[in-house]
């Protein structure tokens, strides 16, 4: 196990602690919002629309009434806090770079799932692809844009939408792969520096 120098460990703790506190605050507000949406007559359909649930307000109320211990909006926070604590401990004891490298293939799977879900929710539009290009490292951006332009130009009008959908569904995965190499290099440098 890589042991970080004490001041680096403190910094890692401060950073992950701050990130954890921010995530907790966001989860708290989201929980309250979900609670309000789920139980108010006007909020029920809105919550359903947002994909928080696939039930109507009446169905939710019936289900909650049948439960002995109905869940409260803030219940998820305990689980989230535990997860953040575990992630923070893992990061502090193993160094962020090492953990991220170790999770390599799983992250790729996660990003692929996010991409597929996003592609299903929205109507395909090329502006998403240009926006995603802006998030890439400079070297990969040119390549990504060249590939999209070439594919869109040569595809027939009927298959354009399909092509955009395909690129967009794979965009998170491409982003992950594009940033993977520079991040891995940075993590290795960080680990080397922390060993000295």
């Amino acid at each position, binding site marked *: 196990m890589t042991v970080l120098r004490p001041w680096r460990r403190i910094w890692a703790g401060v950073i992950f602690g701050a990130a954890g506190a921010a995530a907790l605050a966001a989860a708290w507000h989201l929980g309250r919002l979900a609670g309000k949406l789920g139980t108010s007559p006007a909020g029920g359909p809105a919550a359903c629309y947002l994909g928080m649930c696939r039930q109507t307000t009446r169905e939710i109320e019936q289900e909650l009434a049948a439960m002995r211990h109905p869940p409260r909006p803030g219940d998820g926070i305990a689980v989230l806090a535990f997860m953040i604590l575990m992630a923070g401990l893992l990061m502090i004891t193993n160094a962020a770079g090492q953990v991220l490298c170790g999770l390599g293939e799983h992250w790729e799977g996660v990003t692929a799932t996010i991409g597929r879900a996003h592609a299903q929710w929205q109507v395909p539009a090329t502006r998403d692809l240009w926006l995603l290009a802006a998030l890439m490292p400079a070297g990969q951006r040119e*390549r990504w844009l*060249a*590939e999209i332009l*070439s594919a869109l*130009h*040569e*595809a027939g009008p009927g298959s354009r939408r399909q*092509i955009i959908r395909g690129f967009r*569904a794979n965009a998170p995965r491409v982003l992950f*792969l594009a940033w993977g190499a520079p991040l891995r290099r940075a993590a290795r440098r960080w680990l080397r520096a922390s060993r000295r």
Partner: protein
Amino acid sequence: MALRMTVQTQLVVQALLRHPDRELYGLELAEETGLLPGTAYPILMRLEDAGWVIRRPEDIDPHEVKRPPRIYYRLTAHGAQQASAALAAARRPKPAVLRRLAEQEGTA
């Protein structure tokens, strides 16, 4: 570097192996494999990172030919060797499956 040979990766590698002396561009490769160009792209990125594939931007004047330049992909000699071995390994039945089949035959 060991690459995870998913079904899509196998399709892309097979298409590249079918044309060892020809360069293929994204859309052509997608048509050959039946995958969307967007799906083939991250696979090609991974293959390139592993040193199996090299890419070459087409050397044309876009204004003259009235289309953007394509990016051609080709397997390297090392890549072709590695890809053939990886495909053979992916096609080989797993020991657990063989054991289960043997057990089934034993009981039948």
